[in-house]
């Protein structure tokens, strides 16, 4: 190596030695990485399912959406089987196969009050798919999910969650928030081009709500309409129309999206970041290995479960959803297709532990059962 070569390293780097990354770059990276991580599924998932002897695709397609075999409401649990017959109506269980034509298996990402299930094909091993993966929907009647709309190639890594409500459907399109109208009808539009990719968003009742820049709450009532902004000074955590639940430091605050009225709810004690869900009567949150609820009428809060699955395992991320009667907590592995859930009946205090994901919304429970999803009405 001569003198010229010895100087080359310096020559290559010196023009940029005073460069600094743009201010927003770090937050974009963290946001995108978190989104990709949530949705990243090990490429071996499908292979593992086949090796485990799950139902072959051709047979799955031939089986009707509802069958007597579905009615014994037992599901694979952490060990053995869990009987869900105390939680769901036996005759309402339907099957949602996960095999999508020409795609990787369907991954549910949202359950609406009317039993609509939104999702997308699982991400590839690198967390991103160069092709359009699309937004897919299954209905309360079960059956194979159907394509709602195509998505931009390469945008799969950004699809970490979705939302569906009366006002329509929401999903991330890169760092923009995209929407379709009621029942997924009408053209796909950009609801917020400056959304950013990481803030939470929800659809419930006639409203869409989403967070912006960790201190603003955005509200819209139609996919093609305008949005209203509330400066709430905190992070949107969950939503049950008409109340958005916002966290400001350790405080939980309720914001009425119709008029912006604010009401302080409680101060959290957990040191870890909890995850939240709400229905019209309660707010539930999971943190520090425990599940707690706040009765929004009485203001009383209590711990209802102290042993959530994988609470101390950093490989698992928690997610919580609330139906009218039940709360579903899922700990999902962030790199593999593995999850455990607890379904808690708030009125009876009964719990059911499942060896897969679970969602609750309205009077519906959706859960993963091996190669399929199952959807059923919760017992009244």
């Amino acid at each position, binding site marked *: 190596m001569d003198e010229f070569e010895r100087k080359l*390293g310096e020559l290559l780097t010196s023009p940029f030695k005073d460069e600094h990354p743009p201010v927003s770059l770090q937050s974009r*990276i963290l946001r995108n*990485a978190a989104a*990709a991580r949530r949705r990243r599924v090990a490429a071996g998932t499908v292979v593992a399912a086949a090796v485990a002897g799950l139902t072959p695709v051709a047979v799955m397609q031939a089986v009707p959406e509802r069958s007597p075999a579905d009615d014994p409401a037992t599901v694979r649990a952490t060990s053995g089987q869990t009987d869900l017959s105390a939680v769901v109506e036996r005759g309402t269980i339907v099957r949602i196969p996960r095999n999508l034509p020409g795609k990787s298996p369907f991954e549910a990402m949202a359950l609406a009050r009317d039993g609509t299930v939104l999702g997308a094909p699982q991400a590839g091993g690198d967390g991103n798919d160069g092709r359009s993966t699309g937004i897919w929907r299954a209905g309360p009647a079960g059956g194979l999910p159907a394509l709602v709309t195509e998505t931009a190639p390469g945008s799969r890594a950004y699809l970490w969650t979705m939302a569906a409500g009366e006002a329509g459907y929401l999903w991330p399109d890169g760092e923009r928030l995209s929407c379709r109208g009621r029942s997924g009808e009408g053209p796909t539009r950009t609801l917020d081009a400056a959304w950013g990719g990481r803030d939470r968003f929800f659809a419930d009742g006639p409203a869409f709500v989403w967070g912006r820049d960790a201190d603003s709450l955005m509200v819209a009532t139609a996919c093609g309409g305008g949005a209203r902004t509330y400066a709430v000074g905190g992070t949107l955590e969950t939503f049950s129309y008409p109340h958005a639940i916002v966290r400001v430091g350790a405080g939980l605050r309720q914001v009425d999206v119709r008029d912006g009225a604010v009401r302080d709810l409680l101060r959290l004690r957990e040191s870890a970041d909890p995850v939240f869900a709400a229905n019209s009567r309660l707010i539930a949150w999971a943190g520090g290995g425990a599940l707690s609820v706040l009765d929004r009428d009485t203001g009383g809060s209590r711990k209802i479960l102290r042993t959530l699955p994988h609470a101390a395992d*950093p490989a698992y991320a928690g997610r919580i959803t609330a139906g009218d009667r039940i709360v579903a907590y899922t700990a999902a592995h962030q790199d593999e297709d593995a999850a455990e859930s607890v379904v808690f009946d708030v009125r009876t205090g009964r719990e059911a532990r499942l060896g897969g994901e679970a969602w609750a919304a309205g009077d519906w429970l959706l859960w993963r059962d091996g190669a399929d999803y199952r959807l059923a009405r919760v017992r009244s």
Partner: protein
Amino acid sequence: MPDKELARFDDFVTSRLPALYRYACALTGNRHDAEDLVQEALTRTGAGWRRVRRKDDPEGYVRVTMVRLMLNRRRRDRERLMADPPDRAADDQRLDGVTALAATQAALAGLPKGMRAVLMLRYVDGFSDEQIADVLGCSASTVRSQASRALAKLRAAAEAQEESHG
């Protein structure tokens, strides 16, 4: 998010982003492409952070990821930030070295991506030709050929500049 691993990734990005960004600038010669490149490389790294962390050198992993991403990308028609040549010839002998340097940097900015990547890996990262070949998915002889051609271009640019200043 109650995840110590993710907190470590956040810390890693916070502490190493400036250096990685500058590396990306040097790699691409282009501030805009550098921003895209470091964002994509760190996003991928963050998605598989637990796996990456098990490696000894996450920063080296990100650098190699950036090299591979850059070479896999389509050439973009974007502004190139080239070292600005002096506005006019300067008689000051002390500036001869400076103008030769500027000419070399201009030549560096004009190198094809593959050659630039080879030079970065060889003279900034200190990789052997065999290690570079492994990163780029080519043979060591191809690496040596690319490096030789790149060096010849750069030497020619520097010598031409020196000759023009007598």
